C-alpha cells in the first residue's frame, strides 16, 4: 500500500513537472486557430551535422510550393543564401518562424541574400500551411521525396524523420559561412541571423 502511494506521488510530481505549459514557452497566432499540433517538449537535438563552416554547401534541387524547382547553385555568384530548415508544418514555433522572416525582407535584401525555407512535408501540406502565413516573399521547398534527402545530406534529419530547426548561411561562392542547429523547441533569435548576414560583406 505504502509503495503504491509513493509511486502515485512520484507520478504526480513528474507529471506536474513535465506539463508542457510549465517547461515550454511558445505563442500561438490566432492565424492558425486550433490547427497547431502540440508536440510537447522534444529532445533539443537529434542528429549529427555532416557539413561545417568553410565547406562548400552540397548542391540540391527541390520542388517549390509556388511551382517549379529551385536549385541551390542557381544563386551562385548572384546571391547569398539562407537555408531555414524547420521541423514540420502545423507545429508550434515553426508556424511562427517564417512569418517573422516574412516582415524582414529588407534585412535579407540589404545583404543581397535570398531565403529558402525547407521542410520534409509534401507540397500540398506546405501549400495549405504557408497560406495561413500570408504572402511569403521567399521560396518554400519540399524535401519530401526521397524523404529528407537534403536534410540528411546536411546532417539535420532527426531520427523520427523531421528535421532540426537549423539555419545555414551560404555565401555567393557557395561556401557555408554560418550554421545554427538550434534547440528544436526554441526559435532562433533574429539578431543572431542578422549578425551572421552582416559578416558576409
Amino acid at each position, binding site marked *: 500500500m505504502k509503495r503504491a502511494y509513493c509511486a502515485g506521488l512520484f507520478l504526480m510530481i513528474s507529471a506536474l513537472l513535465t506539463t508542457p*505549459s510549465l517547461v515550454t514557452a511558445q505563442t500561438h497566432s490566432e492565424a492558425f486557430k486550433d490547427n497547431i499540433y502540440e508536440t510537447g517538449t522534444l529532445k533539443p537535438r537529434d542528429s549529427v551535422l555532416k557539413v561545417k563552416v568553410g565547406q562548400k554547401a552540397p548542391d540540391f534541387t527541390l520542388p517549390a510550393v509556388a511551382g517549379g524547382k529551385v536549385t541551390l547553385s542557381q544563386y551562385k555568384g548572384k546571391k547569398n543564401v539562407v537555408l531555414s530548415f524547420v521541423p514540420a508544418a502545423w507545429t508550434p514555433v515553426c508556424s511562427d518562424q517564417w512569418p517573422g522572416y516574412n516582415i524582414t525582407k529588407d534585412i535579407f535584401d540589404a545583404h543581397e541574400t535570398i531565403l529558402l525555407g525547407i521542410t520534409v512535408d509534401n507540397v500540398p501540406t506546405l501549400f495549405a500551411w504557408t497560406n495561413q502565413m500570408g504572402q511569403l516573399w521567399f521560396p518554400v521547398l519540399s524535401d519530401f521525396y526521397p524523404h529528407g534527402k537534403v536534410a540528411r545530406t546536411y546532417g539535420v534529419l532527426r531520427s523520427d524523420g523531421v528535421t532540426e530547426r537549423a539555419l545555414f548561411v551560404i555565401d555567393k561562392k557557395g561556401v557555408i559561412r554560418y550554421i545554427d542547429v538550434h534547440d528544436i523547441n526554441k526559435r532562433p533569435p533574429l539578431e543572431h541571423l542578422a549578425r551572421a548576414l552582416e559578416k558576409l560583406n
Partner: protein
Amino acid sequence: MKKVVWISLLVLSTILFPLDTMAAGPPAVGGTLPNFTLPQPGSSAERDYLGISSRGNFSVPDIKAKVVLIEILSMYCPFCQKEAPIVNKLYEAIEGNPRYRGEIKMIGIGVGNSAYELDVFRKRYNVPFPLFPDADFMLHKLLGETRTPYFIAVRINDDRTHKVVYSKAGSLGEVTPFIENIAKLAGLK
C-alpha cells in the same frame, strides 16, 4: 502512513500550485492583472505619453490614464502583423478624440520577442505606442499564455486600484465600435 503521504501531497501541491495557476488562463473580466512590472520605455516621449516617473520599473496602474489597453503580440505572428495597421488606427482615433485622448493609453507586450525583434516590428509598422519585449515568455506565462493578438483593457481608478474590463483574443474589429465598447465597459463618461 497514509496521513503522512496526504500531508506531503498537500504541501507539494501548495508549492506547485502557484506555478500551475500562472498558466491557468488569461486575466478575467472583473478581476485584476497578475503582478508584474515593465521597464522604462525606450524614449522620453513614450514616458511622457504613459505619464510615469523616470526612475525604475513601473506597473500598469502607474500609467496616467483611466483605461490602459494592452495588446499582447509577437513579431512572428501573422495575425498581429495583419492587425498592426488597425491597431495604429485605433491609437490615432484615441489621440484624435478629445473625449479619449489622455484617458485611454495603449501599450504592447511582445511575447517571446527580443528587443531587436520587437524593434523590427515597431519599425515595419510604425507602431506609435510603447512596446515592451518579453523575450523569456515570463509575462506570457503570467498572462495565461494567451494566443496572439490578445487585447486586455484595464480600468484604472483614482486610488490606483484597477479592474480588467475587456479580455479577448483575436482582431479588435472595427475601430470606432471597439473604442465605444471599451469606454462603456470602463464607465468612461
